[in-house]
Structures are given as structure tokens and as C-alpha cells.
């Protein structure tokens, strides 16, 4: 069960036009929320490569937030729909890896929705707290042998894996 002292580390990818501005607005309006989300600005939620999320989790993040403009309101017309598609695909993969779906949440917030974004952050933090630490990086360390075995396989087939130029 969750440990009260557990403060999850969460990385948030926020789009430049809506959700980052929503976070700005939450600030201007002094809407207090949990301090666990470390915000990284991208131009569009469509920029969020699923590997960013995996990278964050592998480096010790307990959760990830992806936030964009509302469907139909994307600054780049429709790229948030692409973010949404990738998100579901990623959830599928994460599920296979045993990562609870509440750890990675996709959120829509317009530049006028500081309150909604703050609420979404609080919800994500609460959800992740309830789940407890992910400890991916630690598991990797413990499973060093397995990783090394994988690495050997990769090295063995290095040539085959290389992108032809």
C-alpha cells in the first residue's frame, strides 16, 4: 500500500500553446497544486515521442503527464489527435510491461483552464501516490543480469539492427 511519505516524481510534457499557458494561468491565479510535476515544454503534444515517456520512467519518474489543447482546438489544427493515438498505443505497451495506466495520463487543458490543469495535476499525483513508487530504474539495477543478457544479444546482432544508409 501507499506510504504517506512517498512523494512521487512526475514529468509533465506540456504543449506551448494551451496547457503550458494553463499552467501559467494557474500561477497568475495562484491556484495551488501539488509540487510533484516537473514541467517540460514542447511545442505541441504531437511532439511527445512515446520514448520520452519511457525515458522518464526508466530514469526514475513514477508517473508522466502529457497535456495538450482540447481536441478541435489544437494550435496546429489536429496534432493533438495524433498525440492521443500515440497515447493509447503507448498505454497498450505500458500495460504489457506491467505499468498501471494511471501512471501516464493524457490531459486536455485550454489556455483558460488553469483550474482544470491544477486539478488534473492533483489527480495524477494522488493516483500515483496510491500506486506507490514505480521503481523502474531500481528494478533494472536489480535485474542487472537480465539487462546484460539483453545487451549481449543486441551486440551480437548489431549489424543487423543498424539502419542502412
Amino acid at each position, binding site marked *: 500500500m501507499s506510504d504517506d511519505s512517498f512523494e512521487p516524481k512526475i514529468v509533465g510534457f506540456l504543449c506551448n500553446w494551451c496547457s503550458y499557458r494553463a499552467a501559467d494561468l494557474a500561477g497568475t491565479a495562484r491556484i495551488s497544486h501539488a509540487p510533484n510535476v516537473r514541467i517540460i515544454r514542447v*511545442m505541441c503534444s504531437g511532439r511527445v515521442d512515446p520514448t520520452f515517456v519511457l525515458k522518464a520512467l526508466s530514469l526514475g519518474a513514477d508517473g508522466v503527464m502529457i497535456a495538450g489543447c482540447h481536441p478541435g482546438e489544437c494550435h496546429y489544427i489536429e496534432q493533438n489527435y495524433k498525440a492521443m493515438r500515440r497515447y493509447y498505443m503507448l498505454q497498450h505497451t505500458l500495460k504489457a510491461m506491467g505499468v498501471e495506466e494511471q501512471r501516464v495520463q493524457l490531459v486536455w487543458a485550454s489556455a483558460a483552464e488553469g483550474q482544470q490543469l491544477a486539478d488534473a495535476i492533483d489527480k495524477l499525483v494522488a493516483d500515483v501516490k496510491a500506486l506507490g513508487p514505480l521503481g523502474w530504474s531500481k528494478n533494472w539495477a536489480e535485474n542487472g543480469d537480465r539487462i546484460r543478457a539483453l545487451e549481449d544479444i543486441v551486440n551480437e546482432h548489431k549489424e543487423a539492427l543498424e539502419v542502412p544508409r
Partner: protein
Amino acid sequence: MAERVGVYVCHCGSNIAGKVDVADVAKFASEHIKDVVVARDYKFMCSDLGQKMVEEDIKKEGLTRVVVAACSPHLHEKTFRRACSNGGLNPYLLDMTNIREHCSWVHKDPVAATEKAKSLVSASAERVKFQQPLEPMYVDVNPTTLVVGGGIAGLQATLELADAGHKVVLVERLPSIGGHMAQFDKTFPTLDCSACILTPKMSEVGQHENVRLLTYAELEEVTGSVGNFHVKIRQKARKVDFDLCTGCGICVEKCPRKVVDTEFEAGMGMRKAIYMPFPQAVPRVPVLDTESCIWFERQRCQTCEKLCPTKAIRFDQEDEIIEVDVGNIIIATGWKPFDCTKIPQYGYGRLPNVYTGMEFERLCNAAGPTSGKIVLRDGKTVPKSVAIIHCVGSRDLNHNPYCSGICCMAALKFAHLLIEKTGAQVYSFYIDIRTNQKDYEEFYQRLLQEGVHFVRGKVSEVTDATRRPDETGKTIVQCEDTLTGRQERYPVDMVILMGALEPQFDARELGLKCGISCSMAGFYTERHPKLDPVATMTDGIFIAGVCQGPKDIPASVVQGAAAAARVAGMITKGKVMIEPIVASIREEDCSGCRICNNMCPYNAIEFDETRAVSRVITALCKGCGTCVSACPAGVIEGAHFNNSQIFAEIEGALWDAVPPAGVPGESESAGVSAS
């Protein structure tokens, strides 16, 4: 060679320093982040002295990268980029991280806030090392401007630009320019006649040598970007040859088919199947409505065709696509009135004596269907008592939460006209009276003197169910007077509903075409609600009038002029800077899979068939980065947001997480030492 990073932590007075231990953050930066050679905290980084400090450190300490931890980059990124430039450093080697809006202002616990600030600074410092010098791009600005919407805001914008000598293409959906203002009788608070002040502007636009006027036409497609938009406009078929028609009006006069005019007369009057919406219409070329025309119904009649002295009637005319190139676009598409049948308890559409505000405007108008006589639908009874209900569909969570802004004043105007023309008893049902512009409050005071009965309360229903003998034959308004706390019934002859101003029915669709966004309510989003109200997030696209939010005529005129001034500024400058945040494809590594081709909503990725590789058309790319994350081979580079930058930022943000010991290949991009 290692980078030399300078980190600057702003106090922002006490805005940041009151919560975040800024000295500790600076100390952390210098002690724990690799390659940081200077780390300072300072009272106001955005002040001249703060900027000077960055400039001098670049020169003296040989900084190659700068991190400013302060407010939102949306506020001061430009400021610090300039400082870097002044210090001799490429401005794109700066990164700003937001420890005010995203940290000190929103977190209660100073320790947690300080820890978060450290993470943000760490992320920024790791990222900045991977940033690359970029050069802004410049494109020429086409001096022609497109104005969409010929209401008062669009007309004002058009005239400002045309009078200054610039070419304007004005597109209006309806057969005539003029917008809603052409339908009004009087304008508040001065009560000058709406047509008298509007029609001179309309004819000026119609005759202006710099204006190309396209009425009965709609925006079909917008491509390109600021400075060089390519626009397709659908010219709907008028079924009248625009060049041959002299506007004599014989066709209209002789047309045997009469239909209810739901557009200009708001359903209160009739028009012919071939019609000019109103006498002062610009241009004076009629439109044939094929849905009511007898010829299109059963191939008979042809009266108009036979009688036209210049043979201008064209039954076979088709829609036409007109293409224009413009440098900037001003959207002034206005609003639509709230559909009052959505509040059935107010009886509109069921009870004959319930009117919308727009219907009453036409009823009052000297050029309207009753020649300005205020009578009930029977055409003769003059109302002796009238109820005006404010906030119908506005300030109502079931419909629109916002205040429509103009209805209080319009209601006061109606009350005045009613008293003046009929001597009726007028009851005005309001939630709050909002009269906060020049001379508006005075107008309200005047109406109080004129004897309007103001009732503070939200009307619960308008009904014909009588309870008392004096209610027989009346329309009854039931309302709690919240000042006396009593439920009251007001039997009246006429009820006017002050419906909300709503976004145009296709506001979102048009927004998508132009790449601008709407608020939740559906009004276009301005770049900044206070400091940049007519620009949008898309460069080169401006907004004016009610399409940006409810407002009255003076405010619409101001916005029309303001948008025109912004455009004129762009034209005068001649060139426009484009952020170099664009994608590029390493063609030698591209496998030609074309996955990225369909990712781009701007068609900025073309496929070179001969070399079988994809290529980004830089001028079209807006830099969203979606293709970058889609490329399976990772050969698309998103300038200023590339993979190595973002990976480093993630690693920096998680500097305090458990180090991924035993994982091969990690900790290469960043050199954070976990403490």
C-alpha cells in the same frame, strides 16, 4: 569542448524569493550541475541591471549557454534572448525555466517549492547544453490584406487599410455588407440612427479603389503563413451577372414569389425570391434564392429574366472559386443571436406576443416591415405594457455562462423607444444592470427618470395560463422580485427576450481553416487577453469585433481599427521574422517510408519521387514537431526541440531520482551528479 553555462535565478522581488530559497537554488546549480561556471541569484533579472549582468558574464566569463530561472518564457524569453545577443551570444543558446507561475506561486511548502525549482533549473541547464545556434528567418509581406466579414468591425478595418493606400479583399457571406448593425434602428446611448452612421461607410467601401468586395462569398481554404497566405474563396452563384446588372430593381419588383425573410427582417417581413436584403444594400446587385424561385421549383415564370433590361439574369450560373494572395488576414465574422426556443418556459415560438430582441429591432425600424410602428403580430394592436427580459441564454449555466455585454444597454434603448413611441408601461427584468462605458450609466439614469419599472430577478416563466381576471388575454411574466422577496406576476401585452450573443455557427470550422483556436464558448482566442487582444496565436491572422467576444459597436470599431493598425505595421516593415523552430529531414538517412508525409496538417512535407526521400518545405513548416516524433528512423530534426535536448531535459528534471545504475547507455547525454 565543455560548454560554459551561466545560471541566473530571479527573486522577482518576493514573488519567487518569498517561497523558493533562491540562493540555495543558485548554490545547487553551481555545485551539482556539470559545466555551470556562473550561478547567481538576483532581485529582478528582467531589469536593465539584470540583463546587463548576463551580457557582462557572457563577455567576461566566456559563457556559451545561459539559463534564466524566472517567470514564464511567454513573458520574458524575448528579453533575455536580446540580452544574449547584446552579449554576443546567439539568442537561441538561452533557455528560460519557469519557477514563478509553475512553482513559487502555486506551491504552499517552501521546501517542496525549492526542490522543484532545483529540478527545473537542472532540467533547463542539461537541455541548454544541447541547444544550437539558430538564425531567425525573414519573409516578404504581401501588402494585400484579406478581411473576412463585412459588419462594422470588418468595414472599419477595411477602410483604415484602404484609406492608407493598401489593397484589401473584403469577403462577406451575405448578399450585402453591413452586418447586424444594418438591422438596428437606433444605437445606444446617443440614439443616433444606425443606418445614418453605417451606410456612408458601406458605400465608401463599395466604391473604394483599393477594395475588392466579394459579397455572397465564403472563405473556402487558407494555406501558407504570415506574409504569404494563399486563399480560396467560394463566390456563391447569385444567378445574376454582376457586371451587367445596374441595380435597377425591376426583377425584384416584378418577381411574383414572396417568402418570409428570416435573415435581414428576422422573420418579421417578406422578401421576393430575387431580392436585395435592404434598400441601402452594397453592392446593389440582387441575389436569386433558388430555394424559393418558381423557375427552380417547376421550370416556369422567368419573369425576371424577361424583364431585365440588361439581360443580367443567369439561371445557369454556378459557384466559382476565386484565389487571392494576401499577407495578412483579419477575421471579423461577428455573431449569431441565441435561439430563444431553447428556453421553452419563456414561450418564444409558442406564445405569439413573445419577441426576440432582433425581431423588435426590425419592428422599431422606420425602414422595417411596419414602418417603425410598434404593434403586435396582429398588425394593429399597440402594446400598453411590455416586459423586457435580460440575460436570456447569457449568464445561465444551462446555456452560456458569459455576460453578453450589450443586452442591458440594448434593453434600455428598447425601453426608451417603447415609451417614446407607445407610452407603454415597461418592465425590465434584470439580474444586474451593466452600464460601464462612457455615457452608459447616464443613459440608465435617464431611463429610471422616464419611468421604466426595473425588477431585479430571473424570470421563471412566461405563460398564458391565467390566474386572475386581470390576466385574461395577457401574456404573464412570473418572477421573484429579489429586492422585495416576493413572487410577482406581471400581465403584459408584449414580451421581448434579450437573447445572448453567440459565436457564429461555423466559428470553429473557420478557426480550423485559419489555424486559430476558440475559447470554450466558441469565441476566437486572442494572443493575450489584455496586451494583445486583436492578434492570434497564428502570426498574420488578426481578429476584430464580436467574433473575439461580445462587445458593442464602439468596441468593435476600435478593434477593427486596431487590427488594421497591426496589419499596416506589418506592411510597412515589409518583412516578417519567423522563428527558426522548424523540422528538417536528414535526407541521406531517410528511408522514404513516407510515414511523416501524412503527419503534417500544413502539407509542409513533400516527397521527392526521384530520390525517394521526404523533404520539409521550411516556409510551410510551423514547427509542431509531430513528424519528428513519428519518424521511425529518427532522422527528422526538430530545431530547438530535438531529441537530445528533450532527453537531456528529462534526465535533468529527474536528477534526484534513483540513478539507473547497471543500465548501459545511460548518463551519457547529461552529467548530473546525484547528491
